[in-house]
């Protein structure tokens, strides 16, 4: 059996383990280890006395991976981004944002829902986790919407959908993970998330206004805030601006000068700003301890998947499966754009059943090289490329598309986690209610994805400024 066949068998085994409910991190690690043993034993012609040697070599290779892959400067962004998110609760940023958004934009048709979307987008700029974002806004925004007569399903749908924005708008752990797996510039990927994230929010807002105009009962506007009330609502939301500015300026300086540092420094400084804000708002030792413990938990969970999957990836390197898959994809007699669309659709289906981070980590090692090959290779110039963009730009574009798919899968049945969370927060809402309420936003997301595919400039504008 050649190494590619071994690669396919082991990959199939991994999928079975994951489907049967084994924890993704360990299923991947086990598949990788078993695959390595198989490959090394096959190399010695399956001689019975060589099995021990194959086992020892494989165990030692696998045993290198956790330390080797985890001790990375770029990966340090993940824990700092998670910490920012936890501290943001204590900094009181959710309420502040919702108040500000309400006073400034609730006069629109469907105004409170639009305010919710923009407040959530703002909160997304300090939070890396979609689920937490949805949970928080479900408690703040839904009651206010119901008070003025919103349809409860619609209100729940708004929150569930808007909550997904946290994965796209930096800080975003998913974007960092993508960058690490595909070995691209983390800073540029984070920059790239801003516009598509804001763009998604805008598409949501337009949809809501449209619905509110057509069905007058859905969401009446809220008027009567004075300019004074509006202005005083702004200062409490300021830390968000700080964090956005810090992240942007630590990747590139829009005024043409030097950037202020590296993305890892920027992430940590952002956390520091929110930390100070939280202290000022009365966070004390017990809360800090809790935040640190929760950060440690989520971090350990994400890193376990990272190194687990990287053991599997190390095995793939020895099996050369990604190379073979890329060759196969590029040999297909199909238009590259159609292949790309098929890949995105496959993610939509997979995302219905899988967790976003697990899904990306498991598939990217094989899918990413294939997409890059489709575009003409990692070092292709924009002029020679299939999709009309250079290798690194294609990596960013595909990353944003994939993250958008991952967001999409947070609201699709049967396992749209955001919907479960919203239903969990509101005892008066069933999961079916939330799924029904979120349906219009499938269309919004579909439109967004189609536009991002058709106009890559939306994604690539900011990163291309950064050189």
């Amino acid at each position, binding site marked *: 059996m050649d190494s590619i066949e071994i690669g396919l068998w082991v990959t199939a085994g991994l999928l079975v383990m994951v489907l049967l409910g084994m924890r993704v991190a360990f299923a991947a690690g086990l598949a990788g280890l078993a695959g390595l043993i198989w490959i090394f034993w096959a190399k010695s012609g399956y001689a019975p006395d060589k099995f021990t040697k194959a086992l020892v070599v494989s165990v030692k290779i696998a045993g290198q991976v956790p*330390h080797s892959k985890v001790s990375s400067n770029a990966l*340090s962004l993940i824990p*700092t981004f998670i910490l920012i998110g936890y501290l943001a609760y204590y900094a009181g940023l959710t309420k502040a944002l919702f108040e500000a958004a309400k006073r400034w934009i609730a006069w629109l048709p469907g105004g409170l829902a639009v305010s919710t979307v923009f407040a959530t987008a703002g909160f997304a700029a300090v939070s890396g986790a979609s689920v937490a974002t949805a949970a928080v806004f479900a408690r703040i925004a839904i009651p206010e919407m119901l008070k003025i007569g919103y349809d409860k399903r619609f209100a729940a749908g708004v929150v569930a959908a808007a909550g997904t924005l946290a994965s796209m708008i930096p800080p975003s752990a998913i974007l960092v993970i993508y960058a690490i797996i595909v070995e691209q510039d983390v800073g540029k990927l984070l920059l790239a998330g801003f516009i598509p994230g804001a763009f998604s929010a805008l598409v949501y807002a337009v949809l809501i206004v449209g619905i509110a105009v057509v069905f007058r009962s859905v969401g009446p506007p809220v008027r009567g805030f004075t300019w004074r009330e509006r202005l005083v609502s702004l200062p409490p939301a300021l830390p968000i601006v700080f964090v956005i500015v810090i992240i942007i300026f630590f990747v590139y300086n829009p005024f043409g000068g030097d950037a202020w540092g590296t993305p890892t420094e920027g992430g940590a400084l952002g956390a520091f700003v929110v930390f100070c804000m939280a202290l000022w708002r009365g966070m004390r030792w017990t809360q800090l301890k809790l935040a640190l413990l929760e950060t*440690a938990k989520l971090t*350990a969970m994400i890193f*376990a998947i990272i190194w687990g999957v990287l053991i599997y990836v190390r095995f793939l390197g020895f099996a050369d499966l990604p190379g073979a898959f890329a060759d196969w994809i590029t040999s297909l007699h199909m238009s590259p754009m159609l292949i790309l669309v098929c890949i995105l659709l496959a993610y939509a289906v997979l995302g219905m*059943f899988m967790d976003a981070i697990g899904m990306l980590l498991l598939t990217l090692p094989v899918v990413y090289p294939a997409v890059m090959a489709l575009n003409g290779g990692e070092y292709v110039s924009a002029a020679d490329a299939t999709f009309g963009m250079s290798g690194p730009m294609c990596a960013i574009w595909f990353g944003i598309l994939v993250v958008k798919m991952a967001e999409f899968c947070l609201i699709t049945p049967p396992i749209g986690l955001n919907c479960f969370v919203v239903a*969990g927060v509101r005892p008066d809402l069933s999961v079916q209610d939330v799924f029904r309420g979120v349906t219009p936003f499938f269309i919004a997301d579909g439109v967004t994805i189609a536009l991002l595919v058709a106009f890559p400039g939306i994604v690539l504008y900011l990163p291309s400024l950064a050189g």
Partner: protein
Amino acid sequence: MAGASSVLSDGSLLSRLDHALLKLERALALISGFAVFALMVLAVISVGGRNALNTPLPGYVDWIEQAMPLIAFMGISFVQRDGGHIRMDILIGQLRGRALWLFELISVILILILMLALVWGSWAHFLRSFDLSAPLWSRDSSIDIGLPIWPAKLLAPVAFSVLCLRLLLQIWGFGRAFVLGLENPVAVPLIQDSAAQAAHEAEQLEGRD
């Protein structure tokens, strides 16, 4: 998808061992949390030092790389205790009683096999960087300021060994549930349905904004 789940307790030896190990796990996770905090402080010092005093923190990247294993590994067993490691529970979530315990048991045994192998492999990785006869016992050093790497490498087998202990307890717990056909076994994470899980998650955020 599988987020937090609940672990039951009683006065049995198994449950007491569970709580004893939990203390250790929580301490390790807290160390990891403080390392994240230190990372933040380190960045402030680095940026401040560079811009205000033109003295960048020597070996900033080396220090981060040393701290990362602390952050990444130390909480792993704490997460496993509550069943917090991500998995797809569409199928396994449908099972009840003995069938469920059998699945959980097999899955935990497989994880133990992997982790024992990784304790061995990561220990070997540590040993290659460790030399009692060398200064600072170092046979592998960081690129910039030459920090010995063995302490960071040692963290992997340490954290993984604690996880192995946890897995042994869970094998005991699930095995017992399977043999005795228990309804609500102690010391193992029980699957919550998605709604309960979401409620739990929301509860955690209660009073934080």
